[in-house]
């Protein structure tokens, strides 16, 4: 089985698809942490909220209506959270932040159960991306290729913004030393807000694209949270490169671990995380030196 080239192509595509989904989630979380030193455990809940919005709107506006509006709705929710909870807790230390956002998870899970019920919701793949594509001898669903392409596109746009624009330079300065950045006349508060909202929107986008391939359930946010945290801790908190590296490592270790070492695979990624934390406590590609 393992000598078949198609098998490797298929698993590589599966790994890439998982990596890109995780990248969409982890990039927001990691930049929020790098810039604001804020630990947002409720990031997964924002993703679940995005998936529910997309699933609900798919019935009336079609898939693309949900795809466009879900990130906006989640960004709006993020803005509300920012002004009610996040801003006042920024200097409160990791313990208070972990607890408050843990409380938010409780509230979010029950709120989704209350509004949408306990049963999983499924939505159809958009017509444009129905069917399979023959690629290097394997048939692969076009929609999953679209997820990979979308992840790469977001990565490209974010790289351009962070490295080539003024706002990107300001964000990098803020991650490096926020007090110095503020002294240089950058409105750090406004930048925090912007980054937080964009991070939330990306989580919503991830939820919207994941909705047709995974079933939409109240605990989907909780399920994705641990992988996302592993990604950003392996990659190094606060860095875009780290989020990319962490997502790829997680996606490939998880996918290939499951087919090559099925008995060890669930433990593999945690062992890797522990090894990274012991040898390089700041992650593989940390934002600061």
């Amino acid at each position: 089985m393992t000598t078949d080239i198609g098998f490797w192509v298929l698993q590589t595509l599966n790994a890439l698809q998982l990596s890109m989904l995780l990248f969409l989630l982890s990039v927001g979380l990691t930049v929020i942490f790098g810039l604001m030193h804020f630990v947002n455990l409720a990031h997964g809940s924002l993703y679940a909220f995005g998936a529910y919005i997309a699933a609900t709107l798919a019935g009336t506006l079609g898939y693309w209506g949900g795809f466009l509006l879900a990130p906006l709705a989640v960004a709006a929710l993020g803005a509300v959270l920012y002004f009610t909870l996040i801003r006042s807790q920024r200097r409160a230390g990791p313990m208070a932040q972990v607890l408050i956002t843990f409380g938010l998870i409780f509230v979010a899970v029950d709120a989704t159960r209350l509004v949408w019920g306990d049963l999983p919701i499924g939505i159809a793949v958009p017509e444009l991306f129905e069917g399979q594509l023959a690629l290097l001898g394997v048939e692969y669903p076009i929609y999953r290729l679209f997820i990979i392409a979308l992840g790469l596109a977001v990565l490209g746009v974010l790289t351009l913004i962070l490295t080539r624009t003024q706002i990107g330079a300001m964000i990098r300065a803020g991650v490096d030393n926020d007090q110095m950045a503020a002294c240089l006349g950058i409105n750090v508060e406004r930048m925090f807000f912007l980054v937080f909202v964009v991070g939330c929107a990306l989580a919503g986008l991830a939820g919207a694209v994941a909705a047709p391939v995974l079933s939409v359930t109240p605990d989907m946010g909780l399920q994705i949270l641990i992988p996302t945290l592993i990604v950003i801790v392996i990659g190094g908190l606060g860095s875009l490169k780290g989020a990319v590296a962490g997502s790829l490592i997680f996606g490939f270790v998880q996918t290939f671990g499951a087919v090559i070492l099925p008995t060890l695979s669930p433990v593999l990624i945690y062992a890797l995380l522990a090894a990274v934390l012991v040898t390089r406590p700041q992650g593989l590609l940390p934002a600061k030196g």
Partner: protein
Amino acid sequence: MFTHSPLRLTTLAILAAGSLAYAFVAGFYGMEILAEIAILAILVIALDLVAGFGGMVSLCHGALLGVGAYAFTVAANDAGLTALPAMLLAVALTSALSFLIGAVCARSTGIYFIMATLAFGQMAYSFVFQSPLFGGDDGLSGAPRPDLSAVGIDLTDSRAFAVYAILLVAFAYAVAAATLRSGLGRSLVGLHHNEKRLRALGLTVWRAKATAFAISGALAGLAGCLAAQHTQFISPGLLSWTVSGEALVVVILGGLGTLVGPLLGAILFVVLKHEISAITPYWHAIVGVILIAVVMSRAKGVFGFIEARWEARKAQPLVKEAKADA
């Protein structure tokens, strides 16, 4: 440093007398609740020891409880040990595992410590979840209760079991308090305040942290044994990180770093859980709102609030004098 103020001693005495008295008047349901409170109480005492006094916020204590429960059940069912040696073995194993985790995580602080403990907890969870030896996601049943018929006590009776559980809580509290009053406990509090200074004073930091973590883990393992004996059925859900998160919530609601507060927190949490879930299936949301409110109010939990009030009342004359001087 940890001390027993008159307020703390009074609270402890009331809790002990109240729970024992309740154990003798409660019906079957009340006694089940008591046992549930006792399990959670031991777990949060263990967590408060490292998180409240040592600043080591652990998200693997749920997993340690699960390891204790599984070790106990496997030792009793498959290795043929009777309940008491099986308990000792389970507690020793959990403690050794905690020492390793503590030693490995000792270098990291803050959010990295939280993440590292989360990683080890999830590792244990995934391992148990897929391992055929531990019954996978079906769980294991048939954990025995200790046989105390030699002294005329039948622990299959739920009243006797509730009293036994309360006594174990008292034992766990005594261990934690003794640890905190020992040299190790003082070093632990010192590490929380200023790690560099203690390093300069010649303390082997990782060993102190790992030893404290091992003691805390032993207590978590004890809670696991009690949990296995209570329901006589265990599943991988015990090791899930949300159990650790809930334990942390209970410590915060009760009063971090007071050791007495988490006991109050455990009682409040279990009672609230049963009361609210009787009214609405959405009790987690209500707990979440209470948690957010408590953390945002910056009160040190229920007991921290009571203590602050108590201190403020006592300190009032001094404040007036100071004003008069100025």
